[in-house]
């Protein structure tokens, strides 16, 4: 009895010391970091060590505290330590702002006048918004499917090639390019100088068309098709992502299964459709979901290439435009909320998938 009290009080002292230590590391490191600005290299190394170290330290300290809890509530305390930081951060950085937007979406731009659903009426009736919805649908359907299908094809093919790493690196390359850089690249692809005397096309696409005897086109002005030319940019940028993840999944397929199928006389196509696809289906869903959501949020490409003109506007661009350029907070918030609602079907599908996998186990 006495023993346990002593060990208990020792435990408390130890925990207390740990908390003090953590606070000291956090505060001291922060002050130190601010004072290290002049020695850039040391500052950077210190920032990395301290930044990552403190987070690890915090988890360790919190876990020690949770472990000291009475047995009854310990599992919940531990779970809280594990999931808590993520939940707190997300609540602070994303959930609260979303709720704030939800609130603001019922008010006018000053934020004082309650307008109920006016902003939503705008979001669903304004011609620009309707055009954006239509285009977003194109982006979601074609952008996502092109990315996933191309990524899958490249992953499967390169898996069988000797030069796998090189091919994958080349496909992945665009992912490392910033949106500004990508904008420049594709401006050079689609460039069109107009018609008239002594025009010398500097856009590759037009140069090819002209060399083949055709007439130079203003690619970004063609109705409806221009959307596909913009989608091509996203496919170019994002296929690398799909490929990397899908390729990893393909490599996870146990060799025995494939060998067995071959023994049964299955050809490559049958293996692909009967074994590969079903096996990596969860991964395909994950990849498709993230790209789908990415395509819904995407606006940089449109902004850089056409500024949303010529019938290429998308919802996220209109949101950015209204939020920052026009400063129409109410309407912008309503658009953001609509964007959120748009993904509900995707979310439901995802959760079903999760549940299915659970029950299989």
């Amino acid at each position, binding site marked *: 009895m006495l023993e346990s009290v002593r060990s208990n009080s020792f435990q408390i002292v130890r925990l207390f010391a740990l908390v003090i230590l953590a606070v000291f590391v956090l505060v001291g490191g922060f002050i130190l970091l601010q004072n290290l600005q002049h020695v850039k290299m040391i500052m950077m190394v210190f920032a990395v060590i301290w930044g990552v170290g403190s987070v690890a330290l915090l988890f360790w300290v919190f876990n020690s505290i949770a472990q000291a809890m009475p047995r009854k509530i310990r599992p919940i305390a531990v779970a809280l330590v594990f*999931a808590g930081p993520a939940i707190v951060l997300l609540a602070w950085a994303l959930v609260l702002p979303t709720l704030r937007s939800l609130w603001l979406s019922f008010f006018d731009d000053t934020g004082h006048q309650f307008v109920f659903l006016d902003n939503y009426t705008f979001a669903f009736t304004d011609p620009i918004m309707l055009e954006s919805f239509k285009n977003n649908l194109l982006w979601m359907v074609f952008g996502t499917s092109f990315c996933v299908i191309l990524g899958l094809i490249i992953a499967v093919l390169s898996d069988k090639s000797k030069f796998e790493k090189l091919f994958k690196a080349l496909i992945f390359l665009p992912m490392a390019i910033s949106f500004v850089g990508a904008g420049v690249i594709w401006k050079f692809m689609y460039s069109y100088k107009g018609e008239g005397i002594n025009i010398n096309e500097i856009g590759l696409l037009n140069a090819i068309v002209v060399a083949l005897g055709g007439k130079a086109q203003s690619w970004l002005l063609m109705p409806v098709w221009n959307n596909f030319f913009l989608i091509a940019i996203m496919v170019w940028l994002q296929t690398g992502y799909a490929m990397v993840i899908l390729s990893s999944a393909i490599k996870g397929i146990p060799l025995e299964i494939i060998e067995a199928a071959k023994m049964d006389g299955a050809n490559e196509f049958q293996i692909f459709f009967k074994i590969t696809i079903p096996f990596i289906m969860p991964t395909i869903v994950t990849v498709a979901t993230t790209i789908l959501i990415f395509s819904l949020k995407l606006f940089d490409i449109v902004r850089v290439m056409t500024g949303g003109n010529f019938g290429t506007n998308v919802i996220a661009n209109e949101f950015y435009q209204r939020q920052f350029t026009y400063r129409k907070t109410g309407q912008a918030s309503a658009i953001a909320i609509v964007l959120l609602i748009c993904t509900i079907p995707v979310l439901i599908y995802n959760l079903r998938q999760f549940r299915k996998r659970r029950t299989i186990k």
Partner: protein
Amino acid sequence: MKKTKPSKISSIILFILLLFIAIGWTVPTLGVFVTSFRESKDIYSSGWWSVLPHMEWVKTSEFQLAEATDPNAPITIEGHTASFDEWRQGIKVSENKRLRWYGNKRSRKIEVYEEKLLGFGANLTMQNYVDVLQGGEISFDDGSGNIITREGNNFGDAVINSLAVCIPSTVIPILIAAFAAYAFAWMDFPGRKPMFVILVALLVVPLQIALIPILRDFTAWNLNGTFVSMWLAHTSFGLPLAIYLLYNYVSTLPRDVFESAYLDGATPFVTFVRLVLPMSIPALASFAIFQFLWVWNDYLVALIFLGDKNRVVTSALAAMIGEKGQDWHLLTSGAFLSMILPLTVFFALQRFFVRGLLAGSIKG
């Protein structure tokens, strides 16, 4: 998984097919890479492929037509008669000679072109890269004849700042997300399911709506302009995707692994650090790449929370290219310089992919 051995013919077809895709994928980048070595004047007047070896009509001489030549009537030069418009397009007068009217009707100048093979790399320059690395050293005339030169903003410092932002902003969300993914996948606590639904839904929240509220908090906490503010912001913005991806992976790890660990008396924390983290390395690595790329290429978040004091690469480039957004030669070379590091990271982490991101799902 070992490579299966396809037959020779099919492997050749495969190779050609892949080569085709790879070329298609790389040509745009290649175009910009070439462009980044060209002078700004050339970039606007001819396509980048013109640096490749090719036959081209090269101007060798010119001569003036008589003042009396009437450009509005058919014009006869060296035995060929054609209208002004045709002459302006250029007319081949002999096998290796082409005549072209220079400018408008007033010039009356005829240029003589001969076809020649142009070698690779005519008019290429390293100057663009020098300019970018010097941070676009600016010099101009102050009017009274003095040349004012401003020391370029240090690109090297910007790289260091970017690293100080990027590495923690990549590792911290991975750590936090891995803990959370483990908790959501393998622990029981009240509100687990609804919280996870909300979490996945957060994937779609555009981070722009969060900037103003977060900035208010940072102002209140006096965190503006510090690296900590960037870590907090990027960690939060990256968490939904991180947890979503890692949950997919961690939830498919075999249950018996944990159970045997618990039987040995290991706490969840120890199990996590000793077993789950090492087993999840492929998933962690792939998320690390995406998060690193995203943070590295981010401009808006850095602009708002970090400001001008600790310039990162993207803001350094933006500041240098300046209001003249059309400095293609600087934009292209800057884009390439800023790509080097992320690509290095990709190649460094590539080997972790080999085992497979979702490899575990198969065993489950």
